[in-house]
Structure formats: structure tokens, C-alpha cells
């Protein structure tokens, strides 16, 4: 004797948020039943294991049928198959597109290709996120990437409108797309200490300051928020004068040192390493025309700036102080003509370093 067929269909689609989460997390039906039993849901309605199993199966089927619609969330609102109240629709979408920070950290900046997908089982093993969930998250990244790739207009807004996501989630996806598009290196050992949110913040800075779209006049071009502004990158080469011109370099150093003197315990270290640090930052800027060097942007920031500072035991406040004066002092250099580019560059670098300067 066995149950051959067992379905329950409501006119309003019944969905249990807890089961949905278990499904998203890639639990098998049996595992989900176990989790639910441990959660004590059985006591609620004098349910037995069979009841729980039947309910879980029903819900899993429903979610599977909905999954197709969730791939293009706009369809969910005007499809006819499931009658789902709007607030539920929002929940379904938001949860479906939510991801694990540990997982995304692994694929951030990687090409969203089949090759990467093959490595998902390793990532699953490493992060403890189930393979099924990894696949869903990876496919989400890929889907969003593919859709916004062809759209004009601001990236975050496109993602939000096209996938009906919350602002926060849309921004995170924008970061993922941005990283994937520019293939920023994030996997090196030296970058391991950085969280996804650190990178997402940096991505936001880059998107709003360094891309084509950031300038404003190019509204509504393709990839405007995904590709860095080539012209700007070209102009960054001009900043080299700050380290190549001996006078400027000295002048800059003295201005910064004057301003810093007495304000920090690590002043001597700052003074000695000024030239090295400045060369580091300017060289990063000058090399950004090379795609390869763009990819290494974050590793370079860490190697050329953050690590030396850290070894000198700068505090975050020291860092802030130093970078503020470093940026501002350049304005006083009368022979330095590239103030606009300098600000655009340093504004982003400064905030990225602030974000990245932690243990």
C-alpha cells in the first residue's frame, strides 16, 4: 500500500515561508521534513510525519512550478497560473534572489561561465552551501548579468525594475555584475580578509564615479554603469607627474607632512613611507588603462598601500587623516593641473581604502 499520487492545490497558492527557505537552501524533501519536525511544527496541528511529508512535497512542487516564473519576476505579476497576493510575490522574489555572502565571495569577479559552474561543487564543499543552492545563486547572477548586459540606463535601476528587487539587493547584484564584467581579482589570499559587503561598497563607488554613466552626459548608453570610463582611465596617466616630477613630489610630501605633524603617533612612519605610498597609488592609477591591471586593482591597493600601512600599525583614523591630507594637498600644488581627474580618482580610492582597511 502506497500513496501513488497526492496533490493539494489552492485557489490562492499556499506557500509556507519556512518551507520555501528550506527549498531555496537546497534541502531534499526528506531533510526538510526532518528540519521541520525538529522545528516543532508538528505540535501546532497534531500533524504526523506523513502529513508533514505530504505538505512538504506539495510545497516543493509548487515552488518548482513557480521557479520558471521567478526567472523573470515581472511575469509573476501578470501570469495567470498561480494566484499569489502581491506581498507574497515580493517575498518569493526577494528570497529567490537572495544569496549567501560566503558563496558570492567565492565567485565574485569570476567569469560567469560554464567553467565556473563546474567548480560549484568545490565551492559548495568549501562554503557548506548546498550544491543546489549554489547553482540557483550562480544562475541568478548569470541571469541578471545577461539581462542587464543588453540594457541601457543605470545599472541598479535596471536590475531593480527588471527583477523587482529591493534597493539593497539590486545594489548587491549591480556589484556582482560589475565585478563579473571587469573580472576584478578577489580570490587571492591577500584579499581573503575582505567580505562581499566590502567589495560591494567599493563596486558602488566605482560605478558611481568611474564609469561612463557616472559623468552624467552619457545617459542611456549600453553598459554605461558596467564599463569604466576609458577617457578617464586615459587621463589618469597624467597623474604620473606627481611622482615623476621630483619637485612636485617633494612639495606634495612637505605639504602633507606639515599638515600631519603632531596629529598622529605614526607620523614618522608616514613621513618615511610617503614617497612609496604615493608612488603606489599613482602607479595604480596610471596602469588602469590595461585590462589586466584593472583586474588587479584591489590586490594592488592592498599590496601597495594597505599592507605597508598595516605593517606600520596605522590606525583607521591615521589612514583617514593621511588620505584626506594627501588628497587635499595636491590642490595646493600650483603646477599640478589635473585637479578634476585627481579628485575623481582619489575620491574613490580613499573610500575604498577606508572600507578595506580592517582586519
Amino acid at each position, binding site marked *: 500500500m502506497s500513496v501513488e499520487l*497526492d*496533490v*493539494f492545490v489552492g*485557489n490562492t497558492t499556499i506557500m509556507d515561508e519556512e518551507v520555501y527557505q528550506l527549498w531555496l537552501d537546497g534541502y531534499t524533501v526528506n531533510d526538510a521534513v526532518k528540519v521541520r519536525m525538529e522545528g516543532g511544527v508538528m505540535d*501546532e*496541528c*497534531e500533524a504526523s510525519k506523513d502529513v508533514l511529508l505530504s505538505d512538504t512535497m506539495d510545497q516543493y*512542487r509548487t515552488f518548482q512550478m513557480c521557479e520558471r516564473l521567478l526567472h523573470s519576476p515581472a511575469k509573476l505579476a501578470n*501570469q495567470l497560473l498561480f494566484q499569489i497576493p502581491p*506581498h507574497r510575490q515580493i517575498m518569493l522574489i526577494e528570497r529567490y534572489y537572495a544569496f549567501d555572502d560566503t558563496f558570492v565571495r567565492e565567485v565574485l569577479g569570476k567569469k560567469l561561465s560554464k567553467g565556473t559552474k563546474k567548480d560549484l561543487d568545490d565551492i559548495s564543499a568549501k562554503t557548506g552551501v548546498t550544491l543546489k543552492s549554489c547553482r540557483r545563486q550562480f544562475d541568478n547572477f548569470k541571469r541578471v548579468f545577461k539581462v542587464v548586459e543588453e540594457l541601457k540606463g543605470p545599472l541598479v535601476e535596471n536590475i531593480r525594475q527588471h527583477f523587482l528587487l529591493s534597493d539593497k539587493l539590486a545594489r548587491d547584484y549591480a556589484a556582482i555584475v560589475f565585478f563579473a564584467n571587469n573580472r576584478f581579482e578577489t580570490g587571492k589570499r591577500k584579499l581573503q580578509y575582505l567580505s562581499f559587503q566590502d567589495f560591494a561598497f567599493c563596486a558602488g563607488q566605482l560605478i558611481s564615479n568611474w564609469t561612463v554613466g557616472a559623468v552624467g552626459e552619457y545617459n542611456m548608453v549600453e553598459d554605461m554603469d558596467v564599463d569604466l570610463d576609458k577617457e578617464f582611465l586615459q587621463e589618469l596617466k597624467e597623474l604620473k607627474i606627481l611622482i615623476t616630477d621630483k619637485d612636485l613630489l617633494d612639495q606634495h610630501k612637505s605639504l602633507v607632512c606639515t599638515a600631519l605633524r603632531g596629529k598622529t603617533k605614526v607620523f614618522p612612519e608616514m613621513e618615511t613611507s610617503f614617497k612609496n605610498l604615493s608612488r603606489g597609488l599613482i602607479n595604480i592609477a596610471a596602469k588602469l588603462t590595461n585590462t589586466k591591471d584593472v583586474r588587479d586593482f584591489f590586490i594592488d591597493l592592498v599590496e601597495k598601500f594597505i599592507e605597508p600601512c598595516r605593517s606600520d600599525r596605522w590606525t583607521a583614523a591615521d589612514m583617514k587623516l593621511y588620505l584626506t591630507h594627501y588628497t587635499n594637498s595636491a590642490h595646493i600644488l600650483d603646477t599640478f593641473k589635473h585637479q578634476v581627474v585627481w579628485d575623481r580618482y582619489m575620491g574613490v580610492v580613499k573610500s575604498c581604502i577606508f572600507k578595506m582597511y580592517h582586519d
Partner: protein
Amino acid sequence: MPGKLKAKIVAGRHLPVMDRASDLTDAFVEVKFGNTTFKTDVCPKSLNPQWNSEWFKFEVDDEDLQDEPLQITVLDHDTYSANDAIGKVYIDIDPLLYSEAASVISGWFPIYDTIHGIRGEINVIVKVELFNDLNRFRQSSCGVKFFCTTCIPQCYRATLVHGFVEELVVNEDPEYQWIDRIRTPRASNEARQRLISLMSGELQRKIGLKVLEMGGNAVVGYLQCFDLEGESGLVVRAIGTACTLDKLSSGSAPNTNTHMHPNTAPASNACNSPSKDGKEPVFVEDLPSSSGPPTPFRALPTSSSSPPPFSPSKPCSRQSSSSDTDLSLTPKTGMGSGGSAGKEAGPLRTLLRQQTQTALEQRGASSSGLLLNAREFPFFTLTSFPPGFLLHVGGVVSARSVKLLDRIHNPALGNTRSYKLLDWNSVTADEPETRDAWWEEIRQEIKSHARALGCHAVVGYSESTSICEEVCILSASGTAAILNPRYMREGCLDIGCTDHRFEDPSPPSCGFCHIPYDELNMPFPAQLTYCYHCRRQKVPDVLFTTIDLPSEAAVAGKGCLIQARLCRLKKKAQGETNATAISNLLPFMEYELHTQLMNKLKLRSMNALFGLHIQISVGENMLLGLASATGVYLTALPAPGGIQIAGKTPGDLSNEHISSIQKRINDTIAVNKELYQINPPELAEEGVGSPIPEPRHRSRLFRSHSESSDELSELDLSHGKKDAFVLEIDDTDAVEDIHSLLIDAPPPTGFYSCNTENMPGISNWTSGVQMFTSVRVLRLSNANLTNQGLNKIFTDLCENLLKSFYFKLRSMIPCCLCHLNFTVAVPEEELIQVTVTAVAMTYDKEQTQEKTAEKPVNKGSLEAEEQLQFPLELCADSSSSNIQTASKISGVAESTNISPRAASVDYGSFADRCSTWLELLRLKAHTIRRGSVKTSRRTQSLAHSVSSLERCSPLQEGRSRSLRSSRSFGGSSVTVVKMTPLSFLPGIRIIKYLGIINMFFIRETTSLREEGGVSGFLHSFIAEVFAMVRAHVAALGGNAVVSYSMKECVFMENPNKNQAQCLINVSGDAVICISETDQESSASTANTGQTGGGGTDGAT
């Protein structure tokens, strides 16, 4: 050329990718009606094509408009090969044919393919221009409204109930035609879908014609079913209740309802002919108002302060005339009842009837606005009635018959090209053994059962079949009842004066419980007691019915779903042997189901069943029986006795065992009493002003035997005294049975369940509504199962389903599962399928009944009056009609009368009949309050009527609650369509009925595993069916479906071939509803005022 159909194809969306190369589709649309086809342009390379076509116009007969669906096919254009079909949409344009229903069908329809399911959506606009057709001999019946709802629909008033209409249409099943061997499954499925659509269109048209012929304008309680007889064909049949309905204009509805219809006085000649033999409807000359189109009532005064516009003098004169009649009739009526002891009416009886009827005619002529015109079969598919309509309920009557299916002899079948439809009736002339004749037989039997119960009508009537291979069980059941003769058209009811003589003086809250049959000549042994409510007339100790609990009934506590489940193995056999075996089993099954029901009822400490539905399903090697009903404690009936367990012999060794079982049973009863809050009013009440002594005295006079002494003491001793409640444990089977009784787990806290329209004891519904369908199929792996084992499995299956529902719907607590409709089937040898459709509704737990009582009262009366215009009349009348000789006080007790008949073999096919068991009754005793102080008494009765309205139905209370809008959320581009198997939605008022939804779908797959196995396949199919129903309703401009039901869910699988097929038939009424506003309460208050005013008016 009486109609022009216009269709416009606007756009498509979410189309599937048909061209793998481009990932796009070149879609175009074919629009077909009858034999005319139009095409749109191809919209190249788009999954969201915009066709924006011209208006395609079809000029057609209205007959075709009724029969044919508009067929829209979406295709993918292919330059080199044949165009690929994406899917189809069938649009039933019937709703456009009533003047007051929908005017346009416009919206997004799912594009459906029988192999792939829903594939995108298409936006279509359809309109119909109907030219007036004055042809009297027309074949169409445009304009007759159909309702699935089994009560008088909200926002309508019945001015005339004409009675039973039935029709059936047969054809060969395309699935079994020779051509099916060479065509694709898709073509075969589509042929079938289209044929059934055509057949149901034709069926509806024919029923419509019958209704027009009877002078009606609507069919209420329309029940259409398919019999898939396989090789022998396909039968589509329908039954319903023909009515003349008047639309209440929505604005003035609350106030117009008390108006008397001025023109409905019946013809005064009493026609005495008993049932007519032919199928011709009894067609008494037309009433001017009833046969015409519905009269709009907007013109009538609607201000709430004005008294109802019937003239004050009229009721006055009626009163006097009717009381005179009563007086003069009194002795004769008494004689009549004495004479009626004989089974059949003698000449004397006829004479008496004549007199009585004349008298009744007179009263009816002056007082009633609603007339009833019953035909050969005084059957009503309605399950709930306006107050006052139902006088007495006799009990359940049912009939079953086992038939062998023959290939339907159908001369036109050679012509497979066109699905020429044949009316079975026309072919039957030379075919004696036809489906029609079969049903005729069954109905005759039902009728005779009803007569045996002293009833002249059958209400809550329904018919069903169960088919396995060539064996078919036809079943019909209903509730024998006496309807208020005031509403009857004379000459149509084949029943004597025994019924009519009882003018019912009893309060509506218990009147229907009083037995209708003769106490001395009871159709079965039963125990009668005096009504616990009015103390005047006799009631049975248990009452079983197929109808809904009357809204005015007085109940204690809450109701609950009670099910009896039974499996019986049978040997595999062929032909007549098989049919004989089945028919031999049937009576035993009925008996056992009945016993189970009775025991479970006692176990819950209840005394009445409503909505009883017994289904017996036949499979190759077993029969399944499932009886579902809603148990309730009627305060008019005696308290149920407990259940006593007895060993075989007093000194039985298992005595200890027995006492432990007894204890468990007693505990269960106590727990259930608590659970369902059954605290019947104490008997202390009885003394006060109740005329007990008198009727008792009278009863002694009339009783032949001298059980004269204390009827009341008998009541009090009822516990444990009645044999029926002693369960004897004589073998292990009995022990098993008792155990199984106790298995039924009560619903978890916060849940109640019932299978009726309204939940006894719950009325304060809140807005949460969740309709659902659930299907479960069990495979019996063990081939050597015993009956006991099977029973256990089957019971567990049903219980587990209920448990699943409770669990799934736990977020709705406190909530009630209403209209739980279980259907069982044996699709294959070792499979048991149970299909359930029900609705979960939330209610307000805090609000006590007492608190809610006030408001709903008004609403209740209001609703009632909307449906029927003279409730007031009725109340006033009941006082004057007290003047009746008490004829005979008949006693009956609870019954278990099963009378299996011997099998009889017919010539052509096998026919066997099995029985019928008749349940309870009620009595009519009669007080002799001669009408000396008429006025005062009238006042008294008026007061009484008000108080009875206070105990108004939960249903109406539910309706009256004003709640937030039905559209609980905005922002979505898809109209939210609520669905419910009930005739109402809580807190929402139906303002317009848009027409009937009757859809039939087939889904097939050859990639079962890929679609998630059988469960995945069926899950998506049911979801698709819901989606298509919702889309059609939304396109009609509606936002809800009421009286929704899934009539058929036939599932077949072949997992080895990775294939499955499923057929689903659903129906319901599409409606527009709005949330009830605050106006409501003011309107109803005003109405009460008016009611009061009307009352005094009538009394003076």
C-alpha cells in the same frame, strides 16, 4: 440570422519559443465558429505579439450561439512545413446571450494545449449582437439563465418555482472511434473537448427550451454530469429546477423585497390530475407575470419608511376567508387522514383532496406571490429554501440501480466527420432500454419512496453514476418533504390531502422536523416523541436529510462533518454475473454505511444529519462506499442516547474488555459534547406556556394502541433504551468496527468542518477564504486484503486527507472547512482515488453568537425576503392557520429500513435495483386553537416569527458582516478571482450573476517523469484548470465564482509508458460581487421597521 458574433484578437504574451533557431515565434491566430474560420496576420519573431486584428464577424443562428463555443487557435507559422499549433482557447459565449448578464467578454485567456498545458496567454474581445427572434417555434432558448447555486440566487427573487427539468444527450466518444487509431493524441483530445463543449451547449439549450415551455426564465441548481461509458459512448445529462426569477435592482433590493407581486394569483381551478404519464409538463394556463421576462422592480416605491404596497384590505379579506375555510374543512380533514391509512388513494381520498385543494387554492390565491408548478417528478435540486417553503421533512430517499452498458445504438455515428449530435430521446422511440428510461425508472422509485413517507416532493435531489467497464450504477437521492402548498401550482403534485390538511402552526425553527407521515402507518419502525421545541407535534429521534440546514432551524452547539466509509471486495466477473454480484452487495453496503453514520452521530451526541451524500463507487474487484454529512444537534429533536456495548452473553469473558470499550465510548461522547459545545436548553423551559397537555391528550384519542401514559418520560429515558444504539460484540469484526468508530480524530483546536453550505453554529465569518482541491490515489499492494483491512486503509486515507487539510490551513485558524465534498473512485484494480474540494473560511472566534444575533436578524429577514416576498404573510398566516383539527398524531422512531429487492433480469440488459432506505420524518400534530381571538393570536405569532428570525442562519449572518473589499491587494495586473463551492462569499454581496461556467479539459502527457511524476502532472493540471476558470470569469467582468464544483476528475496513468491522462470538468456561477457597505446595516434596520409595519398591517 438572429445573431452576429464579433471577435477581435488583440495580443499575445508569454508565448512559448517555437523556433529553436531564433528562440522566437511567428504566431498567428485562427478564429473559428461553426464552420467559419478567420485568420490574423502572422506576427513575426515575437513572444509577445500584437495582432490588433479587425473585428471578425460571424453571422449565426442563436441556436448555434448556444451550442458552439468560439474556438481560438494560436499557431506558429512555418514557411516550409506545417504550421505548429501552440494551443487553443474555447470561449463559451452563452453568458453574452442573457440581456442582463455580461455584455462583452474581454481579457487574457490562457492558451491551452492538451499535451503541453498552458502556453502563454492571448487577449481577446468578444461581443454578440442578438436580434430579437419572435419565432415561437424556435429551437434556441437564449435568455434562460442558468445557476449552479442550489438556492435562490442572491439579488433575485423567485416568483414561481416550476419544478424539475432534465435532459440528456448522447454521442459516441471520439476516444473510441476508429479514427482514434490513426490520429494524434492531441487531435483526439481536442475532438473530445470540442464534442463535450458542443454537447453541453446543446443540453443547456434544450433544458432552456423546456424551461421556456414551462413559463420559467431560469434554471437554479443546474447539475450537469458526464458519463464516460467508454466503448458504449458518452452521455451528458443535466437536471435542475426551473424557476421564474425576478431581479432585484441592487440599490433598492433591501426594500423591494417585501412587496407583493400583484400578478401572481394562480388560476383558481384546481386541477386534480395525479401525475401525468407523459413527459409533457403540466402546463396550467400562463400567469401573466410569471411567464414573461423578469419584471424589473425599480419602479416600485422603495423608500424604507413606506409600508409594503399590498393593500391592507387584501390580507384582511384573505384572513377571514382562509380561516373560514379552515373551519369548514376541519372535520373532513380529520376523516381524510383516517382514510389515508391505505397505501394508495381511494376514491374518498380523491374527493377529499379535491376539497382540500380547493381550499388551499383559495388561500394560495390570495396570499402567495410564489407558486410552484411541479411536474411529473416533483423534484427540486435546491438544497436551501426561502423560509416557509419547506414545511416538513420526511427523510432521505434514495434509489440505485445496476445496469449493463450496451453500445449506444446511434445511426448517425458512421459520420465521424461532423459531430452531429443526437438527442437520445429522439432515438429512443424504438430503443426501450435507454439511459432516459433508466433514469425515469429511478425517479419513479424515488417518487414512490417519498410518497411512502407521506411526502409529495423531493428536495435536495441529485443523480450520479459510477461506471466500471460495462457495469454502471445509477444513483439518485433526495429528501422527501412537504412543501408549503401555498407555493404550489395546483394539480401537479400527486399527493393526497394527508399532506395538505396540515396547515403548519409550528414555529419555523422546528416545523420542518415534525413528521409528515402517518403515525399509525409508519413506513418503517421509528420512535417518535413530541417536539422538544413546540411540544405540539411529533418528531423522530433522528433526522437525515440531503438538504442544507434551514436557516431558521434551532440548533445547539456546532455542527461537524460525519463520514461513513466502507470497502467491499467482490470477485472479478463479467456481464450479468458481475452486475448481479454488485447489486447483491449494494443493500449491505447501504445498511452498513447507515449504521456507521448513526453510530458516529450518536458518538458526537448529535441527532440530525444534513447534506447527506452517499456515493458508491464500483471497481473491478471492489466497491467503495462513502457517506458524508454534517451532523448537528437540533433542539427540536430528543437528545441522542448514548451507545451501549453488550457482549454476546452476560457472562462473557471479555467483560472487562467490553467495559473498557464502553468507557472509551462514553468518554468520547463527553469530549465531543464539549468540543461541539452541545448544551441543549434544559427541559425546564418546556412548562412555560407550552400547550403540552392538550396535544398529548389528543394523541391518546387517536392512538389505537394505548401507550397513552407518559410520552415525556419516554423522552427522558431515551438514553440507552433504544435498541439501535446497543452495539453487540459477538466477534472480532464487531470489535474492529467499534475501534474504527473511535478512530475518527476530532479536528484540531480552532478547526470545524462541514459539508453543507452553512456551518451550524458558526456565522460570524471574516474575510479569509481559501478554496482548494486535493486528490490522493492509493495503491493497494497487498493482493490478499480482507474487507476489514480495506476498510481500515480507506478510513485512514480519508482521515489523513482531513489531517493534511488542517495542517496546511493552520494559518487560517480559527477556521471552518465548509462544503467538504469527497468523491471516491476506483480508477484501476488496485487504486483508490479520493478527490476533495472544499473551502476554508475564517471566522471571528471572540464574537459570541449572542452578540452577533442582533444585526444578522435583520439581515436574515432581509435576505429571506429578497428571495421570497411573503415571509411576513407567512408568519401572519400561521397564526390563523392554527385552526386545524389535529388529526392524528403519528409516531415514528428512528429507522433503519433497508429493503433490498430481489434482482430482476430484464431482456436486453441487466437491471437490478436495490433499494432505498428511508430516513426520518416528522409529524404533524395539530393544535386546535380555534380562531376566536384572531387578532391577539396574530400578534403573538408575529412576535414569534421575529424571534425565530433572530436565530437566523449562519449563512445570512455571514453575509451581513461588512468587511473590507474583496480585492484585498492592489497592484497586480491580474484580477483576483475568488472561488468557493458555497453560494456566497463572507462579507461580500453578489450584485450580478454573469452566467454559468462549465468547462471541460483534457490533459495528457507522454513525458510523465519529466513533468514531476503523476503528482507533478496533476498538480499543474489542476492549477491550470483554476487559472482558466479565473481567466474566463475575469474576462466576463467578474471577480468571483460561487457554487464552484469539480464534477469530474478522471485520472489514468501508465507509468511504464511514461504516460498519463486526466479529464476534469468544473462548473460554477461567475459573479460580480462587492464588499458590503455600511449602508447595509441602515438598510436592514429600515427593513425591520418595515417588516414590523407590514406585520401590523396584515394583522389589522
